[in-house]
């Protein structure tokens, strides 16, 4: 495949990857709520619900072929629009340091990287980044070390759903409260930040204060994807009942030919199944405004039973550690995989440009139940600043404003592709193609910049306009069943402290049950341990912080 589309989708691709690695270990409740915390007194979380979010002012410089909407539908572009200038003056005066992470191969260092140097020239100063790589304990370990060392850079990417605990007290202790500069109309001074949606901003509010600009990713959550030609053998990746799906999965499982129906990501597959059963996204808001966790619903137990049935029928690929499932989807040896967001089918095009894939739209488990579709967290966190003076704060905000420039702007092009003729050229359709040096210099750095600052995402597959259309249509279908986690943007101290630990009790037991090492009836013990270990306390804290505009589940 040509380089254009690969580069064009890489941003969404790595976000998808980041999202997937998180969801694989901590889905459901912790997916949305994972991370941050209120103040020690517990009153901070409630305050978060009250802060005045930055005024939303859409970027109108370009028009998408397919329009997005406030419900989460992403704008779609069939080709690169001619770029519009969004920032007048270079944002920097001197050197700014930052900590971030890359999901691509590391780019050459600043001294040997003309793309980086040219970006610095446009920024009017020096953007000196410490870039962690996505290996080993990864970013949270690096983050914790730098935090403990007490020599903080000017800004640090904070991913609340990557297991950085106790975010509330940490922010208060070390970082700058930006509410005054961003709340309400104050944000209009930074138009690219004003173009970030209120749903995104919610995730940057902790203790009733805004700590940085959010970093939007896809608002869509997990979907099941499969190869069209594989599923064509059984009438397509669709079903009207769970029994029908079971039959199809069984038919596609042929161990003698080395073929299996499902990726062995048991937790993710179970997530798909509980959607068919109509389970809530993390928490259900009851009529009396109390919360019920997805784990406590009868749907979860029913899902366990069904997933165990699929396992017993041999439908899951037998190597739980397999890392090449995307390849197997392409070559047909595994039929279905769970990915983050429909736009992520682009990953299969990266492996094989002829790979035609489709996604499953949730259906009623028994043909009658109304299924649910779980939207994602919507951002990958925010980037707070070290405590500093007003002049520096303004400089840093101007920088983030530049780096959050929307798709279709001059700044977006500079950040993701560099300079025309040097870092990239244009193909006959007017889409950017990285030059040879661009391919070395750009991806690692662009990935690091995009994970700490980003505009709202769009659907853009320059080489495959049909994919863009398909994704746009599927997003509309998913939105019909869509639910957001009601705790999004609120924080529970207990969850940030013990959330991942008690979630592990649940996921361990869940996997034991699905793989036949434990019985469905054993789940009650795990659930009790979850409740006693902090689950009930988390519920209480979320209930206290629950915003009044969150709808009752099922209503």
């Amino acid at each position: 495949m040509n380089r254009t589309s690969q580069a064009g989708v890489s941003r969404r691709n790595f976000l998808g990857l980041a999202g997937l690695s998180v969801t694989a270990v901590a889905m459901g409740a912790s997916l949305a709520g994972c991370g941050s915390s209120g103040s020690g007194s517990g009153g901070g979380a409630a305050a978060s619900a009250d802060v005045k979010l930055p005024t939303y002012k859409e970027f109108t410089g370009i028009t998408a072929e397919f329009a997005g909407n406030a419900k989460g539908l992403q704008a779609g572009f069939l080709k690169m629009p001619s770029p519009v200038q969004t920032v007048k003056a270079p944002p920097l005066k001197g050197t700014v340091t930052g900590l971030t992470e890359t999901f691509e191969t590391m780019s050459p260092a600043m001294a040997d990287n003309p793309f980086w140097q040219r970006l610095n020239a446009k920024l009017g100063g020096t953007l000196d980044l410490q870039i962690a790589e996505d290996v080993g304990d990864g970013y949270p370990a690096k983050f914790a070390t730098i935090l403990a060392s007490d020599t903080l850079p000017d800004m640090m990417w904070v991913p609340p759903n990557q297991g950085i605990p106790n975010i509330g007290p940490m922010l208060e202790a070390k970082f700058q409260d930006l509410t005054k500069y961003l709340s309400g109309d104050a944000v209009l001074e930074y138009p690219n930040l004003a173009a970030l949606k209120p749903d995104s901003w919610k995730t940057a509010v902790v203790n009733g204060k805004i700590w940085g600009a959010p970093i939007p990713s896809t608002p869509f959550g997990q979907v099941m994807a499969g190869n069209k030609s594989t599923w064509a053998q059984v009438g397509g990746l669709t079903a009207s009942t769970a029994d029908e799906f079971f039959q199809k999965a069984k038919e596609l499982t042929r161990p003698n030919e080395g073929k299996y129906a499902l990726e062995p990501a048991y937790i993710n597959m179970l997530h798909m199944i509980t959607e068919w059963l109509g389970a809530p996204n993390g928490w259900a808001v009851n009529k009396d405004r109390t919360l019920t966790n997805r784990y406590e619903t009868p749907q979860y137990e029913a899902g366990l039973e069904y997933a165990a049935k699929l396992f017993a029928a041999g439908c899951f690929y037998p190597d739980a550690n397999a890392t090449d499932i995307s390849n197997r989807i392409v070559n047909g040896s595994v039929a279905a995989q769970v990915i983050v967001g429909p736009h992520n089918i682009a990953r299969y095009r990266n492996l094989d440009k002829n790979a035609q894939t489709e996604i499953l739209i949730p259906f009623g488990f028994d043909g009658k139940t109304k299924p649910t579709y779980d939207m994602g967290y919507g951002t990958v966190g925010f980037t707070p600043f070290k405590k500093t003076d007003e002049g520096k704060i303004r400089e840093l905000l101007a920088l983030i404003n530049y780096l959050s420039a929307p798709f279709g702007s001059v700044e977006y092009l500079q950040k993701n592709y560099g300079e025309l003729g040097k870092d990239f050229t244009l193909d006959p359709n007017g889409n950017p193609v990285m030059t040879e040096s661009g391919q070395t210099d750009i991806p690692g750095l662009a990935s690091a910049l995009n994970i700490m600052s980003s505009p709202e995402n769009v659907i853009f597959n320059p080489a495959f306009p049909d994919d863009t259309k398909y994704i746009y249509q599927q997003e509309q279908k998913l939105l019909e069943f869509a639910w957001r986690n009601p705790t999004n943007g609120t924080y529970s101290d207990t969850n940030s402290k013990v959330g991942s630990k008690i979630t592990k009790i649940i996921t361990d037991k869940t996997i034991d049950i699905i793989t036949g090492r434990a019985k469905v009836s054993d789940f009650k013990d795990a659930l009790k341990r979850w409740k006693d270990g902090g689950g009930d306390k988390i519920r209480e804290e979320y209930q206290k912080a629950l915003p009044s505009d969150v709808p009752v589940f099922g209503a």
Partner: protein
Amino acid sequence: MISTTSEERQAPSRPYCVASRPPGKPLGARKARKSAAGRQSLRVRWKRDRQMLLMMVPGLVFLLLFFYIPILGNVIAFQDYQPFLGILNSDWVGLQNFVDLYFDPDFWVALRNTLVLALWQLVLFFPVPLGLALIVDSLMSTKIRRWFQSIVYLPHFLSWVLVIALFQQVLGGAGLVNNELRQLGLGAIPFMTNPDTFPLLATVQLVWKDAGWAMIIFLASLASIDGSLYEAAATDGAGRWRRMWHITLPGLRSIIVLLLILRIGDILSVGFEQFLLQHDAVGPGASEVLDTFTYFAGVVGGGWSMGAAAGLAKGVVGAILIFAANKVAHRMGEPGIFSKKVG
């Protein structure tokens, strides 16, 4: 005049003892002689040993920096440690982390698994390198010997990720063996996913990976057995087996005991990556060991203090076991890892 040091440099093989010191430096020497039977003064000993002492400095600094100073970090086991507050500002909680640990059923599962795996390793793994060493030692052709050694060493240099992947390719549900079984119309056997047989699988993996490497120490001490003993025994009509029983094995006894003690002290460290990688395949009920428990509680779960508490508990048990095993070795008349002061 040639100083003592330079003279010693010229004759490095000269043993370090006062008697051999040339009479050029009378002061220290006389003092030393005065304190005849007692200890020599610090200054004399410094003069005598300074080269040795200086050579030890890098090693000591290394140990200090990377082993002894980090030991101080164990205080977080008694704190509610938060990385952003640091050790100085985190709250003290006393023994609360150990109490939590005691009431955490997962900790006991991890401890049980660790002990079970350790026992399997002790019984099945420990004798293998010795056997391999004896085989290699008995090979006459140097060429075959080298080949054999290289082949059994090699897996040691593969990471656990590769080893598990190889086992998966051969024994996994979609692996070579099970595919053959299916072709023959027999059912697949869940070698890699059966929690009941996991200790056996884990030990086999360990043997495959590390037995060749562990053999090196035995080979080295085999080489140090006096060859004339064998000749004498052969002259007296001792056959191959008698020679092994009466010469080889007694010759290796000290090293066997030493390695056994070290292994026992280390018995709670059965491995980490191997079990982390197979965590989901067989479930934590069979594969959670103390090290993975520490990892999940501390690094993944953010409970650094509880993780440190588990690590500390493990270290204390390990130390007790080492002392106990060493004591037993002394009773058996072996030097062990350290001896009591003689005389």
